[in-house]
Structures are given as structure tokens and as C-alpha cells.
């Protein structure tokens, strides 16, 4: 399955949820937030939210800024 994650087109296993995607990307270490096709996916729904072909995902975290 293809999806655009943080601006890059990735080839991903089928049937991923937001949660398993984050695990797949080893993005667990940080506090992150996820936007799927322009809408935020609440943490509470990470386990259920299934990804689909062509999804556009943004995975963000806090960095230094002023």
C-alpha cells in the first residue's frame, strides 16, 4: 500500500493502523501527533484508524522554536 508520510511516498504493508504505522516507523520514542488526509487522528483512535491506499499522513513532534 502506498501512502505519503511527511511528504514522502512510502510503500507500506497492508492493514496498518496509525498505531502500527508508528511502530513500523519506530516513531514511538517521541511524543507525536498524526494528521490523516488533513484531519487530526486523536490518540485514542490510533489503534482503530486503518490506513488506506493513497493516504496523506503528517506525523509531527515538538522541536526547538521561538
Amino acid at each position, binding site marked *: 500500500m502506498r501512502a505519503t508520510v511527511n511528504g514522502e511516498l512510502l510503500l507500506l504493508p497492508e492493514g496498518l493502523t496509525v498505531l502500527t504505522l508508528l511502530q513500523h516507523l519506530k516513531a514511538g*520514542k517521541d511524543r*507525536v501527533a498524526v494528521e490523516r488526509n488533513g484531519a487530526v487522528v486523536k490518540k485514542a483512535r490510533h489503534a482503530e484508524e486503518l490506513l488506506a491506499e493513497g493516504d496523506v499522513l*503528517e506525523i*509531527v*513532534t515538538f522541536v526547538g522554536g*521561538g
Partner: protein
Amino acid sequence: MALMDDFVLGGRKLSSRLIVGTGKYKDFPTMKAALLASGAEMVTVAVRRLDLKAQGEASLLHWIPKEMVLLPNTAGCFNAEDAVRTCRLARELELGGENPLVKLEVLSDPATLLPDAEETLKAARQLVSEGFRVLPYTNDDPVSARKLEEAGCAAVMPLGAPIGSGLGLRNPYALQMILDQAKVPVIVDAGVGTASDCALCMEMGVSGLLVNTAISGAQDPVLMAGAMKLAVEAGRMAFKAGRIPRKLYGNASSPLSGVIGSR
């Protein structure tokens, strides 16, 4: 001697009137030392894409003292829509909270880094309607400031000078007009170059300042952070103490009578 006058910013009671950024430090330990030296109770952070390649990299948050309130910003956004999306993600990153605080920053272009007042206002209206407590970075136009206040922002944060310029308060007249009309806290955001700039703004009656580059870019960031802390307190105290008037011709501080040799 300490002056007790807390103020409320976006629902948070603060005793420190200096808000500091976390950007552009040479390393996290220096940043943490500077944050502590600044005495800040609120620090700004940016929201950025997770670097998928950087495995196990140290996280910013581990280096920010837990007691400090995070103020996520929308730096890097050049239109209202991106800024709103960024705030929604920031709210999620902050693990909810009823009325999350955000520093709204919508820039016009990478060259001047000046705020786009039109887009900032558009984003502010949307964010307020979604329950955010919005602290908008804006230009020093009193009209922009008034519109942001009317839009329901929790404060107005006019620039002193362009981000990172270090020029200090370029237009005290404009700031005075903003202060004259504002019913929400006025925070000078961007442009500060050194400690006296902070004192000067505070003496005009602003509620606080937001500083990043002037600290992180100083040759000794930790020492400069301490300087800013004292300058903000000094300026606040001087504002409260009521300065002497300015006049071209002064007055003697020693009595002019009783001098020897006089008749």
C-alpha cells in the same frame, strides 16, 4: 527586593514576564541552562514533521524543565490554513487540555520574516472558534492589534523589530498606541537584541516579552538569559515605581545653600 505582581496570560498565572524560545541553541544542555537562567515559566516550541530517519535521537522535551508551560507556535506557516492545521496537531501533542494555548505566527515571506496580518487575523478567528487560546505574533500596527483583540485573542504580541534582527524597539510610538487601546496583555515578541531593550519595553507598560535569538545567539547564552531576566524585572519595577519626568534643564541633587565661603 521582589515585586509581587503576577499576571494572567491565556489562563495561566505567571510571575515571570519573560517568555523564551527553544530554537537555535548549539546543544540541548546549553538550552536547558539558559531556560533555567531566564527564570521563564513559559517556553515556546515549534511543531515539525518527525524525522523518520533520525532513530532514537534525543527529544527536545527531555531538556525542558517539567514545570515550564509549553507554548507551541506555528512558525514556518505562510498561510492561515497551515497555521490552523498546525495548531490542531499541537493540541494533540499537548495531550488535549480544554483550551490549549498557541502562539499564532503566520509569516509573509522567508526574507523579511514579517507577520502577514491579514492571514494571521483569518487564522485567529478560526482558532478562537475552535476553543484555542490564541497569542498572535503581529506587526506593530495598532489597527492589526485591535482587530486581533476583537477576534478574541488572549493577548497581542507585536514585534519590536523583525525576528532575529536585534534592533530592539524600533517604533515606541506605535507600541504606545497599542498599549493605550489594548484590554488584553501586550507582549513584545521578536526584535529584542539585548537586556536594555527588555527594560525599555517593560517601562512602557507591556505585560511581558518573548525572546529567543537574542539569548540563543549571544556569545554566552546562559549569561544573557540571566541578563534578560533581571532586565525584565528591572523594567517592570521601574514602570511601577514611576520615573522622574524628562526635562532639558535639571535640578541639583545636593542643596545649593550652605556652601562654604558664601555670604
